[in-house]
């Protein structure tokens, strides 16, 4: 009787394991096809990272809007982490009031383009009062004004096989967004903060604002945007500078 029981147990366990393994393999294929696997999915923390990214991507209808506030909520203190780039080109552009600065858009686009700051400011703009929350724990609320990244991407004409938008600043903190986040209406290329020109420590002349993710995803001092179908050949292939220094690529929590 006990033999029979343990044999039955063995068979059920075996079947369950096989079903579990093939289920996992199928889930991995599906997740990859629907873009639910983050570029930093490797290593011991990769499982948690993938679960977080996949579940939040599934939960967010791609257009769920980050919370916005009214003007009375705007903070009185606006801390920053990091300094303006020491890069020579950046310092020269800064000294010239960014008159010579250009945003380059290239990669998988039908019309590679170059925009001056004045041109960007001439496009339809969006202003939003959102929370900037640092992964360290602090947060502040400010108003950002800029042109939606989606507007620039549509001007350049993103090719169908595009999967990511890579953003290169004048410092080392390059980053990338998946297409749902890049095309999201609140994802801004911001050139103004609280109704003023973007202050230098906050990323002048142009910074990213991704209010559905934590602060470090909203990189500053932008110079170039490149559309791609793979992140493998950018930096260490982990999707952004953050995983190279120990932080996750996806910053939704």
């Amino acid at each position, binding site marked *: 009787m006990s033999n029979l029981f343990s044999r039955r147990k063995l068979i059920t366990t075996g079947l369950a394991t096989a079903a579990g393994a093939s289920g996992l393999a199928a889930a991995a294929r599906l997740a990859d096809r629907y873009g639910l696997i983050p570029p930093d999915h490797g290593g011991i923390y990769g499982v948690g990272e993938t679960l977080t990214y996949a579940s939040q991507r599934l939960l967010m209808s791609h257009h769920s809007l980050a919370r916005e506030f009214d003007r009375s909520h705007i903070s009185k203190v606006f*801390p920053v982490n990091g300094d303006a780039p020491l890069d020579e080109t950046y310092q020269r552009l800064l000294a010239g009031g960014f008159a010579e600065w250009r945003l380059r858009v290239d990669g998988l686009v039908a019309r590679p383009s170059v925009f001056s700051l004045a041109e960007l400011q001439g496009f339809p703009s969006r202003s939003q009062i959102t929370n900037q929350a640092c992964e360290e724990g602090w947060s502040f609320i400010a108003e950002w004004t800029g042109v939606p990244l989606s507007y620039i991407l549509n001007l350049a004409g993103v090719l169908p096989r595009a999967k990511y938008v890579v953003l290169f600043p004048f410092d080392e903190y390059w980053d990338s967004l998946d297409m749902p986040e890049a095309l999201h209406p609140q994802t801004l290329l911001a050139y103004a903060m609280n109704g003023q020109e973007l202050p230098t420590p906050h990323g002048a002349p142009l910074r990213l604002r991704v209010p559905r993710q934590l602060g470090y995803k909203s990189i500053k001092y932008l110079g170039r945007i490149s559309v791609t179908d793979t992140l493998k050949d950018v930096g260490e292939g982990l999707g952004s500078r953050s995983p190279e220094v120990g932080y996750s690529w996806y910053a939704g929590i």
Partner: protein
Amino acid sequence: MLLDSPRHSAVVRITHWIATLSFLGLLVSGIAILLAHPRFYWGETGTVGMPSLIDLPLPFVLAGQTGWGRYLHFLSAWVCVLTGLLYGLSGLLTRHFRKTFLSASSAYNVLQRLTYMGVVFVLFPLMIWTGLAMSPAITSVLPGLVEAFGGRQSARTIHFVIAVLLVLFLIVHISMVYRAGFRSRVGAMIRTTHEQPILTP
């Protein structure tokens, strides 16, 4: 004193130790994240230069260095939540909760039962809730999660206070296990069944 020795089911024993591991992961990584900004605020915003609620006498030593802490925190959180779901479902289906927490013939006294119920049904769910309330992605879908607490910083503060309560529970839990007979109680959480009721001092 002859105690009725609790016989823990396989699900209870396995989920207990997985939860223990994930709790330690959450605690260690939580302390690391705390050391990036050991100060708490109320409301929506808060940072150095704004009025604070709790200033812990700790240095801001890990600012910009808690990437590993965040990775470990969320990995452990997933393990803890999935294990908790398994425990909760099984507790409901097998009537483990009813027998252990609600029945008068439970092996535990009223205070113990209330404490366990508080930890399982109040503190852990609140911990998950306040944690999710700090996610700008989640609150874009469910803004009520954070609005219920009056803002992101309030949620962060409550998250910390509950963490302290859970650590206090852990200390009391371990000391009571120690008083009731460390070997036999830990053994009861590891072995399948007891052949004999355990005699404890």
